């Protein structure tokens, strides 16, 4: 298998775009899993797809449609102050239903629908890369501000109330960050690949990591390595990127599970030494 194709000018921009997604989505996923809201990834991806389809039907900018619908859902979810997966499950069902109805009744949306659900990273351009690069910088800054409050609220749930403070602004900022990231990701790599990048690397990191910081590194590393392999395989064998990425993530999860089962004592020892 030759790796030259990745550096072909035709595919290098899509490769870089996906690489940035593979770095940032697992880090966001760490906090979603912390809040037991990992279903948010699938929910916002479905809603972004529905928004993009609606925008295409209305002949409006597709990316803006996805961002508006998923952003509005984030605001509503924060406003009704419901945490956990229940609210996200309802939003996901609504997004899926609306998308399928639009695909069934508007033939013009069919092509975009396939791109959103199959994940056609190769068709992304410089505007996707630029928007993703901007999002990466914003997300890095936002997470520096959000990390401690989100962890504190999860581990010491009464901290904010006991000190007369409200965590709502942190919730809103985080939900909007997730909605934006997932809307951008859905437009580039599709619904299920976006979900897989949020869900699987964090699942691996939660199993193997000995601390929060090291788990974030494990999640990002597992994601990037799996992404690069999936991109190359899909390119060489001329397959749609989304399904290959999802299957690669499934294999990565199985591999991590086997490693944990086989080397459990060593992992525990390394954790106690601060090595993982």
């Amino acid at each position, binding site marked *: 298998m030759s790796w030259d194709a990745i550096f072909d000018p035709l595919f290098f921009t899509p490769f870089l775009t996906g690489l940035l997604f593979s770095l940032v989505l697992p880090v966001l996923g760490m906090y979603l899993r912390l809040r037991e809201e990992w279903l948010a990834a699938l929910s916002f991806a479905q809603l972004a797809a529905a928004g993009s389809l609606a925008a295409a039907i209305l002949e409006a900018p597709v990316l803006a449609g996805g961002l508006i619908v998923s952003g509005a859902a984030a605001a509503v979810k924060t406003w009704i102050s419901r945490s956990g997966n229940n609210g996200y499950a309802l939003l996901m069902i609504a997004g899926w239903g609306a998308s399928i109805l639009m695909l069934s009744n508007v033939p013009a949306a069919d092509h975009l629908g396939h791109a959103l659900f199959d994940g056609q990273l190769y068709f992304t351009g410089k505007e996707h890369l630029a928007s993703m690069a901007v999002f990466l910088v914003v997300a890095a800054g936002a997470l520096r501000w959000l990390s401690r409050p989100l962890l504190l609220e999860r581990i010491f749930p009464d901290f904010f109330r006991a000190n007369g403070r409200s965590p709502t602004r942190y919730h809103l900022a985080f939900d909007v960050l997730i909605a934006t990231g997932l809307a951008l990701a859905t437009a580039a790599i599709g619904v299920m690949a976006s979900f897989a990048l949020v869900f699987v690397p964090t699942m691996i990191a939660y199993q193997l990591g000995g601390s929060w910081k090291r788990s974030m590194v494990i999640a990002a590393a597992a994601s990037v390595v799996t992404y690069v392999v999936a991109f190359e395989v899909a390119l060489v064998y001329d397959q749609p990127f989304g399904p290959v990425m999802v299957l690669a993530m499934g294999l990565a999860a199985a591999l991590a599970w086997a490693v944990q089962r086989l080397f459990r004592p060593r992992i525990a020892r390394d954790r*106690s030494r601060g090595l993982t």
Partner: protein
Amino acid sequence: MDAIAEEAIRDPVAPGRTRAVPPDAPVCVEFRDVEAGYDRPVVGPMSLRIHAGEIITLWGANGAGKTTLLNAVGGAARVFRGSIERSASVRISHQHQNPLPIRGIPLSGRELLALTGADPDSLPPVLAPLMRRRLSDLSGGQLQLLQVWACLLAPVDLVLLDEPTNNVDQAGVAHLVTAFQTARKGRAVLLISHDRRFVEAVSDRIVEVVRR
């Protein structure tokens, strides 16, 4: 129903023991005829002043309403009558009697202490190895010790501790007693415990809470 008034609990724990807090120390939190509960009042009326640097233990039988009083200070229980007066600038840390909700979260001991702002170097050397271990790899007693430490040595004005010695062995309790002496510098502590020896070792006052 027995009302607990400030007059009834003014004396220190042991006869002849020197009160550690000067009488003119600022009041951190004041209970005024407080009746607290969730759906209905389950404890009180109670009046109590907690001064800066003071360690007070709420003592009483199971179900007397001690945890409810702590929760009322932290805002998790409702005050039906009376009031709890505290300055808006008073910062609070609260250790619950339930284990930390860490299910599967990859957090190390050092990261736990960093969350509340407690100084990791305040741990005695024998407990230092807990700093780099994942919380879910610790025993119940070790986790409890770190949880109490994170709250007790956080940069706050009032520490609420609910059964801090649960699951902790004698050596751990001895470390906690030492930590209380460090913690009292600038902090008030409102404590619930059924461990009489521990209570007598750390408390300036013991307040009995009686079931309604």
